């Protein structure tokens, strides 16, 4: 079975879906001839032509707004926004139109499109290239939010996203684009939207994370094990709609939870998860739910970036606190 990194896995998933369904088109800046600045769409224009893998002018609102029109008219567009920081100019299209069309037209028109965007920090990039804006979109009714943390899931999730009836924001943790290689079968498979995954079982506490932070969380779980703490680790994979069941079952078993998010702390997804745990499982809790997060600040440039990003050490500190309660 071929081993692939995250970039190659998404590329493979896109290719398979374009083979399967002629309505699938890709559009964005530098996605065609260049194959994307991270090479996620490498080779696709050569294979499917410039009508289906489209290099657009430099305009995020243009890309996303046009993708919306395409989706409404029956195509299955996959729009790329080169970095998550540049989603901002497309926000009007996403919030005012894409997320609302089903409701506004009482189901007459729908917007089954995917917006792909590299996500998060950790690659020492320039300004606006290291943000974690997932909460803004989770807070936007009508759009789903997906983020893989492994190559296997990346292929399965991008395929499922393209087939989904609803618009999906597909975040790609750029820090682990090439950091993990694993077996990604050539065969057809999808990973369901809206299902979290238990990556590691344990009885002492539940660690909940997503995106590039999953790897840090797994490392923290290993470190904690040396201190005699057995942590269960959950990768959410889909952030909206949230797979509440998976983490609630786990927390009811362990009685303790630490949520790890790269994004700023206030009003992050961690806050929502924490709220749901206490709303439904208060009597199972042995300790307050802990959050290890980025700060409520702008992500600093590279000289200070490593202070901002949650590390296994910071996560272990949170684990100790929860275990000692």
């Amino acid at each position, binding site marked *: 079975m071929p081993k692939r990194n995250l970039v190659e896995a998404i590329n493979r998933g896109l290719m398979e879906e374009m083979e399967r369904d002629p309505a699938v088109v890709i559009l964005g800046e530098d996605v065609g001839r*260049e194959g994307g*600045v991270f090479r996620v769409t490498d080779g696709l224009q050569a294979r499917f032509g410039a009508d289906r893998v489209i290099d657009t002018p430099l305009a995020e609102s243009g890309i996303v707004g046009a993708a919306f029109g395409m989706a409404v008219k029956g195509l299955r567009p996959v729009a790329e926004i080169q970095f998550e920081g540049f989603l901002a100019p497309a926000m009007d299209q996403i919030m005012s139109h894409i997320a609302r069309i089903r409701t506004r037209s009482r189901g007459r028109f729908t917007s089954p499109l995917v917006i792909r965007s590299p996500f998060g920090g950790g690659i020492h990039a320039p300004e606006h290239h290291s943000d974690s804006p997932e909460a803004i979109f989770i807070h936007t009714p009508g759009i789903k939010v997906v983020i893989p943390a492994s190559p296997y899931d990346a292929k399965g999730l991008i395929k499922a996203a393209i087939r989904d009836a609803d618009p999906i924001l597909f975040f790609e943790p750029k820090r682990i684009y090439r950091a993990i290689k694993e077996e990604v079968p050539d065969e057809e498979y999808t990973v369901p939207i809206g299902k979290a995954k238990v990556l590691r079982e344990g009885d002492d506490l539940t660690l909940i994370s997503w995106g590039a932070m999953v790897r840090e969380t797994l490392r923290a779980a290993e470190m904690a094990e040396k201190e005699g703490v057995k942590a269960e680790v959950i990768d959410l994979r889909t952030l909206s709609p949230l797979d509440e069941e998976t983490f609630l079952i786990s927390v009811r078993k362990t009685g303790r939870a630490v949520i790890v998010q790269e994004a700023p702390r206030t009003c992050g997804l961690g806050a929502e998860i924490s709220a749901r745990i206490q709303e439904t499982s208060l009597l199972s809790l042995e300790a307050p739910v802990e959050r290890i997060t980025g700060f409520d*600040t702008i992500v600093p440039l590279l*000289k200070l970036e490593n202070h901002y990003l949650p590390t296994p050490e910071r996560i272990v*500190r949170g684990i100790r606190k929860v275990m000692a309660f």
Partner: protein
Amino acid sequence: MIERFDPLKGEMLRILHPDGRLEEDLRPGLSDESIRDLFQEVLFIRMLDQKALSLQRQGRMGTYAPVQGQEAGQVGSAFALGKGDWVFPSFRETGVLYMRGVPVRDILLYWMGDERGAKVPEDVFVFPISVPVGTHPLHAVGAAWAAKLQKENICTIVYFGDGATSEGDFHEAMNFAGVFQLPVIFFCQNNQYAISLPRKKQTASKTIAQKAIAYGFGGIQVDGNDLLAAYAAAREAREKALSGGGPTLIEAVTYRFGPHTTADDPTKYRKEEEIEEWKGLDPVIRLQKYLAGKGLWDEGLERKFRGEAEEKINRAVQEAETISPPPVEDIFRYTYSQMTPVLKEQLTDYQAFLKEKES
């Protein structure tokens, strides 16, 4: 000049030809000695740019957007400005920053990932680099508007590339500037590529300069590799702005010799032959030729100048590399005018974590 060269007729202002010939009747009020001084700035910026590239390759700097090929347009236009004019740069404006008084050390610091490099001295009116493409023309418009309302006799200038002209905000900026007759100069460096996308796929317009016409003001295409053309157009646009004549769009036709940034591989999207063709239009070569013809430049002078410039650049590199690292508090300090209780708590907690780690 702006009215004389009609972009719709394919007319482009060029004063100093690639072979070093100067159109005397178009010559702006610049003596040969001034041209030599400005040429030295062009050369200095090229050297600084090369140094930045090599620092990045050695892992001593973060991602960098090289400026090679665009130096003359930047020097010429920036030199046309007055002391109090405000500059709104994009991310490929090393030459403009330097010309407007941003210390070389700070230019390097910023690209080294140290945000203290974006804090310009008090008497320098250069806004921090805009990494988002095409959103900052509106900022120049707003600042020009404020100057007009405050009755300050200055203009603003915004630098951007051909790619930026596809962004909605660019059009909103042009429209506002036209409607309110604002003292702003839109300086587009059309360097032929937005990362991989060639200029002709960016817009179906024959020129970028002609876009001004739709917004009700003048646009001019200049040879962006011609220091004198860039200077002459910017100077006239500034005079026009200051005398209440409103905005101008200048399209400087140029070429990016290097990659988009150090993270880019241009061999994916352009051919060596194309680069070679543009090499003949290199802004440095024509200035060298012209000045040599006037007896104002030769190999000896160049060697001497390069030696001094290298020393100055190396000093700046050393300063940037030996400065003590920014403190952790800097992450929090500038988020609001005063640090909020929540931020204070997060900082205190993180400092406690760092202490625990040490012990």
